[in-house]
Structure formats: C-alpha cells, structure tokens
C-alpha cells in the first residue's frame, strides 16, 4: 500500500486538466439595455444573482463616512408600498435571500431564489434598488446596529490593527477611512443623504451583473429590466485620486491588554491591471498565501510554533495596490515572529524562489482554479469579478495559461520589485515584546476606529 502510493504521487505531478471548461458564459442584454453574464445550470431549481455598482465607501462625503454602508443595511428594510416588516415577510414567505454590502470601491448585492419564485424575487430587487423607503424608524434602528457593530469591532484586536494600518498608510485618502464610518459620522447621516446616495450612485452605467442557475437567456432578459431597468442611466463622475502608501513609521504599537499581539503588516503591491499581476500572484502564493505550503507558514508556524496562522495576500483596490499580511503571537515572542517574517521577506526579495517552488505554486494555482466554481453563488461572484477587471468573456479558459506562462525570472523580478523589508509597515495591537525598533506608543483613542 505504501509502495503503491509513492508511485501514485509521481503519477499525479502530471498536468491537471483545464478546470472550468464546464462553464459556458452567455452575454444577455435586456430589451431595456441592461447587460448581464449568464451561466445556465438547470440541474438544481434555483437562481443566484450577483451584481455590483462601481461606487463604494470611498465616495462617502467627508464627515459622512459610513453612508454607503448604512444604505446597504437599509435597502431591504422596505421599498415601494411595502414597509420593512412587510418586505421582510414577503422575502421569507418565498424563501428569497437578498443581501447588500458596501466595500471601499464597490456597492454590491446578491439575490438567491428558487426558480419558481424568480418573478417575485426580481420584482422585489427592483423595488429595493429603485424605490427604497428609508423610513425614519428603520433608519434609526439600522443606525444603532451599525454603531453597535463599530463598538464590537473596536473590541477586536485584529480589526483595530487593520483599521489603523489603512488609516496610517493612506492618510488623507478615502482609503484611510473605515467603510463603516465613525460614531460621529454615522450619527451625522440624514435621510436626505441616504436618498441622495441611492439615487446618485446606483446607476446602470456602473452596474455589473452575473447570473447562474435554472434560467434561460430569454427568460432572464426581461427580468433584468424588472430588477435594474428603472435605475438612472448615468451618474456624475466621482474623482477618487490614485494613491500609494504614505511614508510612515515602520512600526506602530497600539497598547491593549491582550495576551496575544495581533499584527498587520504590509507594503506597496500592484493593481489588477499591472502586467506583473500573475507573477505577483505566484510570488505571493509561495510567500504567504499557500496555506500550509507557504514559506511563512513553514518558518513561523511549523518550525517555531510562533502562531496559529500567518498569511499574506494581494489586495488590488481600484486606486492602489497593496500586499497585506497578518500574524498573531504571544506578546513575549512577537518580536521573534516579526524578525522571522522580515527574514523570509528579505530572503525572497534578494534570493528569489526555487524552480520547484515555482512549479508547485503553478500547479496549485491552475489546479485549484476550478474549486472557485463549486456553487452557483461562487460562479456568479466569478462572473462579476471578471467583468470588474474587464478580463474578457473567455477569461476562464485563458486564465490558467497566463499562470503557466510565468517564469522563474518573472517571479524573481517581481519579488525584487515589490518585496523589501524597508517598505514593510507594521501595526501591532497588544503588548508586544522584543521589537527591535523603539515602538511609538499610541493610545487607542488616537487611532481612527
């Protein structure tokens, strides 16, 4: 049995079949001109819809931070002639799931329905998007909920560290702000602000739609108009500046009486449209994204037992790209974790990666691509992501060859370009010991929540 397995392991290094060849995308255009990408999947009687508007929390006016997020909490709190309770009951009676969210660059939503309820589901979505009621009692209720979420998050070292990282790194830019706002800014938001946001930013020119499930293009087309057809065609341009990480102290410590320090570390990265995107993806896979296989997990977790998890990931925002990482270690050994991470980053920057690491990362990235298509929601999300970055309707078939094309030189070049311990910026929440730098103490109050 053991002998047969080593044979099998060798056998399995052969190339993996093209992944998502089962995904056949059709572009559907409604009579009213609303465009969507559709993957038909008739085997289960449900439909999953994912969509977004290119206008997120970064567009929140100064002093009204949290506006987009508050809108996202209120769109299913009553629309048209249905007040909050009536609207919610209608969704439950039909087992329709409708959700909204606001990120930095996008306002997004999802809809999931049984096929038999699709007409009502799309109708209710249309109501929510184009005729939200914003009743005063619902506004106050959801406002209080947002404030309580802010308080809960301010109790979480990890969230505190992430917020402070963005606040320092992007000082002066909308990315520095909490998408959920502050207690003061959320208190300052009026009903007029909410109405203005929905009327201004939820427009058809900024809309991207992905649909998966038990529905044909002919059936979907008119329903797109029901959901999105009454939205305004265009919105005024919002100018958000391109940005990069500002000069900051290399380490900020936020004192909290917790036994384990939680660190967020990061450095300038690249945007999705950068020609080096796939080289960076492969590099980061080897550095810190590859689960138990990454260099950071090997050095920080497996060899030294310093943490339960250490990760890095590429964050390609609309107007800046960054590489972010996280680690959590008992206070007394935080300095050691930091030193090991810096050693790993430095080593990759100066010495690059090995041919074997490159091959392993590529087989993972190509082989695992299909795993991103394991449910209707997930596929709908992929359809939106591909459109967001304008990657083309044939991207799913082309994507793995783009990974395959990456060479050792590509990865080493991008590692040298991006990775540098001088550029690393750390925010550590806790009472860390053993940091080489003299830490500048900051009280929690001094940091944007």
């Amino acid at each position, binding site marked *: *049995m*053991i002998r*047969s*397995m*080593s044979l*099998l*392991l060798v056998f*399995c*290094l052969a190339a*993996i*079949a093209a*992944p*998502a060849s089962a*995904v056949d995308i059709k572009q559907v255009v409604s009579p009213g001109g609303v465009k969507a990408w559709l993957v038909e*999947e008739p085997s*289960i009687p*449900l439909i999953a819809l994912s969509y977004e508007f290119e206008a997120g929390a970064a567009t929140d006016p100064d002093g009204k931070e949290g506006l987009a997020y508050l809108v996202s909490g209120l769109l299913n709190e009553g629309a048209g002639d249905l007040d909050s*309770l009536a609207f*919610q*009951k209608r969704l*439950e*009676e039909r*087992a329709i799931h409708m959700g909204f969210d606001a990120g930095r660059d996008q306002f997004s939503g999802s809809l*999931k329905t049984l096929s038999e309820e699709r007409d009502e589901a799309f109708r209710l979505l249309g109501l929510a998007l184009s005729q939200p009621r914003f009743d005063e009692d619902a506004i106050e*209720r959801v406002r*209080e*909920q947002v404030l*309580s979420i802010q*308080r*809960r998050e301010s*109790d979480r070292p990890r969230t505190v560290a992430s917020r402070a990282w963005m606040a320092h790194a992007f000082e002066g830019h909308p990315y520095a702000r909490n998408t959920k706002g502050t207690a003061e800014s959320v208190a300052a938001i009026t009903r007029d602000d909410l109405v203005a946001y929905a009327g201004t930013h939820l427009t058809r020119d900024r809309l991207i739609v992905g649909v998966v499930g038990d529905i044909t293009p002919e059936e979907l087309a008119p329903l797109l108009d029901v959901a999105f057809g009454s939205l305004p065609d265009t919105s005024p341009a919002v100018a958000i500046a391109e940005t990069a990480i500002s000069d900051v102290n290399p380490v900020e410590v936020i004192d*909290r009486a*917790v*036994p*384990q320090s939680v660190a967020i570390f990061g450095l300038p990265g690249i945007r999705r449209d950068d020609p080096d995107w796939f080289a960076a993806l492969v590099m980061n896979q080897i550095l810190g994204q590859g*689960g*138990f*296989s990454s260099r950071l997990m*090997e050095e920080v977790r*497996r060899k030294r*037992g*310093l*943490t*339960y998890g250490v990760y890095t990931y590429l964050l390609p925002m609309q107007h800046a790209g960054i590489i972010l990482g996280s680690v*959590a*270690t*008992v206070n007394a050994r935080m300095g050691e974790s930091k030193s090991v991470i810096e050693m790993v980053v430095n080593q990759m920057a100066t010495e690059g990666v090995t041919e074997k690491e490159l091959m*392993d990362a590529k*087989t*993972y990235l*190509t082989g*695992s*691509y*299909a*795993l991103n*298509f*394991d*449910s*209707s*929601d997930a596929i709908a999300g992929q359809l939106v992501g591909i459109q967001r970055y304008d990657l083309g309707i044939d991207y799913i078939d082309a994507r793995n060859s783009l990974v395959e094309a990456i060479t050792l030189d590509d990865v080493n070049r991008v590692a040298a370009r991006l990775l540098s311990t001088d550029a690393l910026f750390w925010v550590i929440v806790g009472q860390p010991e053993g940091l080489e730098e003299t830490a500048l103490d900051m009280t929690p109050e001094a940091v944007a929540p």
Partner: protein
Amino acid sequence: MSAAAAQAVPSSLFNAQEFTLDNGLKLVVVEDRRAPIVTHMAWYKVGAIDEFAGKTGLAHFLEHLMFKGTEAIPAGEFSKTISRNGGRDNAFTSWDFTAYYQLVAADRLELVMTMEADRMGGLVIAEDEVAAERDVVIEERRTRVENSPAALFREQVRAAQYLAHPYRLPIIGWMHDIEGLTRDDALAFYRTYYAPNNAVVVVVGDVDAAQVLALAEQTYGQLEPKEIPERIIAAEPPQKAPRELVMHDPRVSQPNWSRSYLAPSYLWGASEHAMPLQVLNDILGGSTTSRLYQTLVVDLGIAVDLGSWYWPSGVGPGSLGVGITPAEGKIDALPEAVDAVLADIMANGITEEELNRSKRSLTAAAVYARDSGEGLANLFGRTLIVGRTIEDIESWPERVAAVTVEDVIAAARHVFHPEQSVTGILLPEPQAAEAAQGAAE
C-alpha cells in the same frame, strides 16, 4: 469486489448512495456533475467528549498531529502534496467527531483517498514535531479565546449550561490542559479510535459511485478494523436551579446579554421535539420578522439587534437560546421582556402564518443545500457520524411539512423552564461602564 456493499435506495432529493466495506467503514457518495471537482471527507466518531480528566483538547491536538506524517508522507508534506495537486485541505474537531477534508479536481480523488487511508492506519509522530505543534495550538487558543472576552465568556456559559455532560468542556481544551498534552497521549488516542470501523467517508462531486466504491476498497479497504471502546459519557442530571453569570472585562465596549436553555436534540431527550424546535427557533429569533426582534428591537427599543440558535445535531443534549445586543442603558429590561415573549408563545401559541413562513424557509434550505458540494459533504458526514441515517436527511421535507402549531407549542413548553436555563451578561469593568455612562450624560 469483496465488499458486502449494501446500496441504499437512491431518493429524489440528494440521491446519496451508502456502502459499508467489510472492515466496517461507511462510505457515502453523492454524484454532482456540475463541475469537475470533488469534496472528500473522512469523519471519525471521536471528539472532545471522548477525552479524559486533565486531557481536554486531546482530540483537537491529535487532529493537528495527523499532519505530522506517515512512513510514506513526511511531516508537513500531506498538505503540500494536496496543494501541489491543485487541492485544498484542512480538518476540524468537535465534541462528537473529528473530520478531515480535501477539495480537489475530480481526477485527483484516488490520490486523496490513498493519502487519507494511509494516515488512518499509519500515523508516525516525530518527537521533535510535537513541542512546536503544541505551541501552535496554544497560540490558536489565544487567537480564538484568550484574546476575546466574548469567547472567554461563552466558554464559562457553556460550562454552566451542562452540569455533567462533557459538552461543558471547550473543544480546544483548557489552557493548562493543552500545556500538558504529550505525544504519548495523542498516539494512544489515535490507536484507540482511528480505525475504518469508526469512520465515515463522504465523497461529493463529479464522480461515479461504483468507481468511488472500488477506490475505497483499494485504499481504506486494506485497513484492519479495531475493537472500539464503548463511549462512556457522563449523563446530565436533572437541572434544578436557573443560573446567571455576569462577567466584567475591561476590553468590552459593547455589552451582550444571552439566555440559553438545555433542549432535546435528535439523539437525546424527548427527540420528537427536535424538528418543531427548528421551527420555534425561526419564529423566536431567526430573522427580523421574529417575535423577539419585533418586540425587543422594533416595539420596545430595548435591544439593538438579536439572534437565536438551536443546536439539535449532537449525540448529547442540545441547547436553544438567544443572544441580544442591548440598547444603551436597557440591559436590565431584557429579562422581563424575553420572558414575556416566551410565556406568550407557551400560552397562546403561534400563528399559521408564522408556521408556514418558517416551514417554507426550512424546505427551501434543502434545495439551496444541493448547491454546494462542500456543504453537502459536511451535512452527510455530520449526520452519519453520530449514528443518524441518510433517510433522516432525505426525509427532511416531509418532516418539516408534518410540523403543526401544536407541536411547536408543546416543544416550547418542554424547553422553557427557568431551572434549565443560563443567563449570561457580559459587561465592561464597572468603573469603565460608569465612566462611559457619565460621559454620555
């Protein structure tokens, strides 16, 4: 094929097929051809409730050490091999079970079954791997529990909810117990419980059931069964006194209030109430249309948000409860208001409209469940490993449909007794709370 492979009658909902190998291993296969991928899970009927005094966290520690190698796969290479083959893998431990899973391209199923069978029988733990991994688990406990007052408090509440049953113990273990776990502890536990006849393997995805059975024969089928000791679990005594726990922690800025009740599960106590309790949970606090939300949040304004839960799926006693974010300064008004809502349901029942709304969403959940291979593998594994059956899953729509208003009232009356409840109140330090109050005024 030597297996006495009894095939279950495929039903219309999930079309799950069940086989039992000669060595006692149970195999469940759900064919789902939508994408060329497969979820493979190995479930063991051993978890935190099988640990012994002073060794809490042992089942979970062993789960970590299961990645430390066999003769064929060196320490750390298990996940790397999966990853090199384009797959993802991980594991988790609960009170009743421990489970390992891989998501891979369908043509990699043979590899993962071979590797999982290999470590079912041939785990080797090098002594020099153990100390660092114990540190990893200690850091995991700090991440999940010690750094979070809410998680620390949940641990205390749980220990108060169950007086004797080992559900009172944290799966990850108490810190002082984790510090004392050894390689010998883990190996003894492994040798006792990890065997084909104590396992359920679930495969969901782009596969052919007959081929999966053949692969299972070829891999898991080669392992010898073991005599598994009978589970000896402390029985829960009658609960006689309502408990109220108050914890102050300076790290808390958002107070929280919870109430939980000991409740039947599908396998413990008056299990006929379990299905109606799922409906009751929806009606009580499952959404914004629920009784508690409409009363406490909308009408009275004494809560900001809330949610209820019911845990029916363990081998032992379940629990049903509600967690509430109080409105500022209103936490003292919550007990009376919650009690009034519960009393009203017990006295006056629920409406047909409420019943039907819940039943509709519970029925639809079965359709939505079919959409995720990983979710399905989880559902089948979780159900079968505790001794329930495929029929229990497949009959879900009929069981939901059969629930009546009277069933829900009877279930509520069975559960809502103060003496089997725990009220948990999580607050900032008293002086911090007063300071905050002062600042607000």
